[in-house]
């Protein structure tokens, strides 16, 4: 009996997991992850951010690009810093901003994330800025919003924090210029860090010479090298010839999960002190996505020292978020 083997039609979803970020014309619509953007879009975002930096320096700090638009900051996980910079960015683009802090307890009361979403959508929002403690939440929301709504991922679980990574590469570009000759080291809790994952993708998208991660194995995801990084467990070897050092925040609860013996031992091995900083290139810059745990992953002398660009990161953050918001909204008709 003849059997015809029909190849399975694969669901659209699996074909290109990042295609959802673009509309039918190939224009950026949602920013969920750095993956899939490619160097063109990353560069375009950085260039646009550059033009907004001048706005930040003016007396009247507003441009009318998003006038009449409503941006909803939808934060399911508390955050003051990120939410504030998104809010400022939206306001400088003349958008109306609504801040909603939804404790996850509200969603466990029976209202599903989808219900919450539909309710807010009914308020004629044009853009959701979403932070959620579950990896994939931003994708989920982007898949379930009405077609006219853009979704910006402001951090989902351990997965991605693309605007943070963009402002980091923006800061690196301003300080160092080209990426190809650079060695960048990311130090600390990579396993639980959405920032690190997005930074690795952003740096590799821009063809950075070498991206390194430095951490004990308990703080590294399985097969982390497949993300395109060189793995070090030792600071002296890892920081050698490095141009950029990115320190990550270490959450205290990591001690309880038996991932680390103590803060003291972590600081002794991986905390960035002036002595360890000296192992990197003399002109290396020090970055931190904030908020820093002084004395746990970074010494105050380094955080406040001449090589630190931590505060520049914060101010660049507004320009980068303005760039992302305006680009995501510019693809649509008036």
């Amino acid at each position, binding site marked *: 009996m003849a*059997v015809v083997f029909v190849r399975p*039609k694969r669901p659209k979803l699996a074909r290109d997991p990042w295609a959802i970020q673009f509309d039918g014309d190939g224009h950026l619509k949602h920013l969920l992850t750095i993956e899939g953007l490619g160097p063109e879009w990353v560069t375009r975002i950085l260039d646009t951010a550059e033009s907004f930096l001048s706005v930040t320096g003016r007396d009247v700090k507003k441009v009318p690009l998003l006038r009449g638009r409503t941006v909803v900051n939808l934060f399911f996980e508390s955050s003051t810093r990120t939410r504030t910079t998104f809010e400022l960015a939206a306001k400088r683009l003349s958008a109306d901003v609504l801040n909603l802090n939804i404790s996850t307890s509200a969603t466990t009361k029976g209202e*599903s994330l989808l219900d919450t979403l539909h309710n807010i959508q009914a308020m004629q929002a044009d853009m959701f800025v979403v932070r959620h403690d579950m990896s994939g939440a931003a994708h989920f929301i982007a898949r379930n919003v009405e077609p006219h709504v853009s979704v910006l991922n402001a951090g989902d679980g351990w997965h991605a924090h693309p605007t943070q990574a963009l402002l980091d590469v923006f800061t690196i570009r301003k300080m160092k210029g080209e990426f190809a000759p650079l060695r960048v080291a990311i130090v600390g809790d990579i396993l639980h860090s959405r920032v690190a*994952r997005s930074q690795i993708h952003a740096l590799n998208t821009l063809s950075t010479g070498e991206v390194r991660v430095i951490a004990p194995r308990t703080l590294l995801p399985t097969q982390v090298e497949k993300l395109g990084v060189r793995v070090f467990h030792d600071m002296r070897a890892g920081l050698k010839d490095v141009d950029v050092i990115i320190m990550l925040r270490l959450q205290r609860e990591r001690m309880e999960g038996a991932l680390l013996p103590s803060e003291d031992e972590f600081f002794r091995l991986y905390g960035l002190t002036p002595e360890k900083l000296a192992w990197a290139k003399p002109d290396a810059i020090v970055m931190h996505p904030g908020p820093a745990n002084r004395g746990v992953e970074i010494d105050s002398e380094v955080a406040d020292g001449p090589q630190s660009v931590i505060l520049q990161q914060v101010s660049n953050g507004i320009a980068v978020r303005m760039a992302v918001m305006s680009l995501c909204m510019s693809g649509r008709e008036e």
Partner: protein
Amino acid sequence: MNDIMNQTYFAQGLDIDHLKPPEGCRPGIDCERWIIRGARVIDPASGQDAITDVFIDKAGIVAVGQAPVDFVSDNIMNAEGLWLIPGLIDSWARLREPGQEHKATIASEARAAVAAGITTVCIPPDTDPVIDTPAVVRLIKRRAQLAGGARVLSIGALTQNLEGKRLAEMVDLKEAGCVAVSNLLKPLENLAVMRRAMEYAATFDMLVIVQPQDRALARGGCAHEGAIASRLGLPGIPVAAETAAMAQVLALVEETGARVHFANLSSARAAQMLEQARREGLPVSGGVSAHQLFLSEMDTDAFDANCHVIPPLRSLRDRDALLDAVARGVIEVIHSDHQPHERDAKTEPFPEAAPGISALETLLPLALRLAETGAVGLHDALHRITAGPARLLRLKAGGIAPGLRADLCLYNPQSAWTLETQHMLSHGKNTPFIGWDFNGQITHTWVAGRLVYRQRIGSAPGLA
């Protein structure tokens, strides 16, 4: 369980396809008589594969080939061009009743099962109430009889209320009809409880079904700990969660001699351990869900909540090793691990979406696809869903030979279709196989000699 042949399952059954019983026949008791003519009869238990006739009487198969003397038929089915295969035995499927009827009911799922060629479904004990007393077993049996679809068999709890502390009344459960006992993924208080439970089960020759997964190693995880989960930032479940738990149980099998079936295997290493244990002569066997043979961690890449399953979809290497183990008979059973969910349970971000796939309706199509791709021989593929589980559960079914129960289905191998949500009979529409094309469909299903499902001509699969 010894005399299943004479049990009647549809005494008051609703006839799901509105087929009138033949005249002068007490429905479900001494009828129906059937001659199934001219089908390609495939009996994976014996390896027989020929175009012949099959004769059914008194709920059983009375002859293959030659009609018995004085056989008078009430019904003749002309089945030329079709395959007659044993009804499938799904050894691990949740029907959600009692306790979670908003997800599915015994009636909805037993009906979906027969439309997909499954004539026996074994349900794990994590119902509400838990299957740890004969009363619950009887309730389930009664509901299934009323539903009139597939036969539903219970798997009893290994410990009371699945709490892992005190043994469940296994003998009572066995006498009430439970085919095995299991504690699912629920942890036992310690290994001593597991040892005693296995010893007690072995005393009464009960099969213990184990889903090997160490609770602490798997805690918080929702995806295979590998490159994809690392990239997506999904908390991982390492392979060691499965192999460490399996190693502990294997050590206790050596000690107690209990019959153990490892359900839901997911890794290459587990298949290897199973093979080794079997080679050493331990009384262990293995089962795998059909989806584990087709999907891998790659399919979780877009946070598709329908691919959130426990144990997780692992690497391509694991998938291929499982396929190989199925092909070589190291793994004797393919089950559906059917877990129907309401829509809301899956419309959540990946880690929060309820795990599981609605899988009854893809069990046979996927098993046959294994044969179509050449990964597994046709007879072997059918064996894993019929004779394999029948042998495991000691059921007088799963084959086509005189003396066996007449659980049969006719399959049209040239009837292409596409899995669509709206055509699914299960209440759960949660499956990543939507949009997949398959080559053939079940046209008729008999349970204990009674035609319980007939595909409407020109209709989509399952639409009755």
